[in-house]
């Protein structure tokens, strides 16, 4: 894909959030370009998830500016949106994949309804078409089509996460925010999910911000990395560059802490 884009999809400047005396994140800034996957790595409590929550509006940021280039070409001041516009943006152009698939899924309704919900929220009113798209997406995330009428409760952890991804991507979002998408899954299931995600991101030309503490996940999925510590971004750069030639002492520590079996 050799497109020339003049402006980033998402521009973040000086993002800050305090929880009382605690620092959530401090002066975080980055640009996300169309088709790019940005990894945010760091240890637990480093502010990764706070950054993601500030972006999605689940947590109100104290400082900073987030600009998003919407589908219609307008530049949207994300933090300044009123709630109705923000929720509409989250429904139509953004997608969120939660660490725990139970947070992103409706456990009481069938897999098909879970995938169809965002379509119906955007105004789809044809049962047959909704179901057809749900089947398409179950196939894309490698869930057996005869499971479409089963409740998510009967799914394994890996299937739940794949179902959540199908549910998020069915409306064709341009930007996906993922919080530890492979967290809590065993290694072989993780590998399969990573394969799937990598394929989907390339195929759909998605832009994504992926928060993870797992450097292997970051290396596989992310084009660029931000390393966070104590709420601040201590290092950023191309993924291979950051992981193979870490400059900041904390990044060096982080990279050297990875176990190689």
């Amino acid at each position: 894909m050799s497109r020339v884009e003049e402006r980033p999809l998402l521009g973040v400047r000086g993002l800050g959030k305090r929880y009382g005396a605690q620092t959530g994140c401090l002066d975080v800034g980055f640009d996300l370009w169309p088709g790019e996957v940005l990894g945010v790595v760091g240890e637990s409590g480093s502010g990764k998830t706070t950054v993601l929550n500030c972006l999605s509006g689940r947590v109100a940021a104290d400082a900073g500016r987030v600009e998003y280039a919407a589908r219609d070409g307008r530049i949207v001041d994300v933090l300044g949106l009123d709630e109705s516009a923000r929720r509409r943006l989250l429904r139509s152009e953004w997608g969120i994949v939660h660490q725990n698939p139970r947070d992103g899924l409706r456990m009481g309704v069938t897999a098909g309804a879970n995938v169809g919900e965002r379509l119906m929220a955007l105004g789809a009113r044809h049962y047959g078409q909704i179901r057809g798209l749900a089947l398409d997406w179950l196939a894309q995330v490698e869930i057996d089509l005869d499971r479409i009428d089963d409740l998510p409760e009967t799914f394994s952890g890996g299937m739940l996460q794949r179902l959540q991804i199908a549910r998020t991507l069915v409306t064709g979002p341009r930007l996906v925010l993922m919080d530890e998408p492979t967290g809590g899954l065993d290694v072989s299931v993780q590998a399969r999910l990573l394969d799937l995600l990598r394929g989907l991101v390339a195929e759909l030309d998605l832009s994504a911000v992926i928060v993870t503490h797992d450097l292997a996940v970051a290396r596989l999925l992310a084009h660029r990395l931000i390393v966070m510590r104590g709420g601040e971004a201590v290092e950023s750069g191309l993924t291979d560059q950051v992981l193979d030639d870490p400059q900041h002492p904390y990044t060096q520590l982080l990279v050297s802490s990875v176990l190689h079996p």
Partner: protein
Amino acid sequence: MNQYNFAYLDEHTKRMIRRAILKAVAVPGYQVPFGSREMPLSYGWGTGGVQVTASVIGPDDVLKVIDQGADDTTNAVSIRKFFERTAAVRPTTRTDEATLIQTRHRIPETPLQAGQILVLQVPIPEPLRWLEPREAETRKMHALEEYGVMYVRLYEDITRHGKVAQTYEYPVLVNGRYLMRPSPIPKFDNPKLDGNPALLLFGAGREKRIYAVPPHTRVRSLDFDDHPFEVEHWDRPCALCGARGVFLDEIIVDDKGGRLFVCSDTDFCARRQADGGAGGDRP
């Protein structure tokens, strides 16, 4: 009953409820909170409807009370008697004579006229209640018109049963804006909500909400393009008056499996029988 104010409620309460009603009429389908009072009947027996009725009733009103279509069941009889004693209004069972009708679970078969008020008793006013447990969140969903989840429910019904299995309290969209739970009327009565010339008031006593469908308001039952909304059909007419195209109750008549299908609207059925209309169709 001289020790009570006219129509039982004190004038301040009536004024408060009338204000809520005015707001409900101004924003069709929107649930207006109000300070629901203790009434001399238990929750679930129509405390909301009784308060609405008490607030709009006047000495010249002619009152009809319906319970499940019938004028002679306990709930209907006691509420009618309550207003006879506290407001000295003239009671009637005839839909066309009444100026004010309080009803539980039915809209009369006889078409309502401009100037009439129909008060419906509502147990649970929130249409999103079993889909979203948080009240703060359901209010936000109403404010932002986020009704996709209601369609999820319809989708589930079609997936499991091949059709929308909801037969009462079938969700409607009022005036193209607010999702509304039309109280537990059968979905058979949903089309009567649409463009009705009468004023429809909904009162929920325990949940402390009042909402309204003003005359000639668009009320659309939710559906899918390829699974359109349908009402119930019976393959036989009423066994007593012969009416077709009306809502029928099934009555067990003996212990040998004998059963009868008769009009649920007793006033409608009795008048058709009196007019010798047996065998005919709906007027």
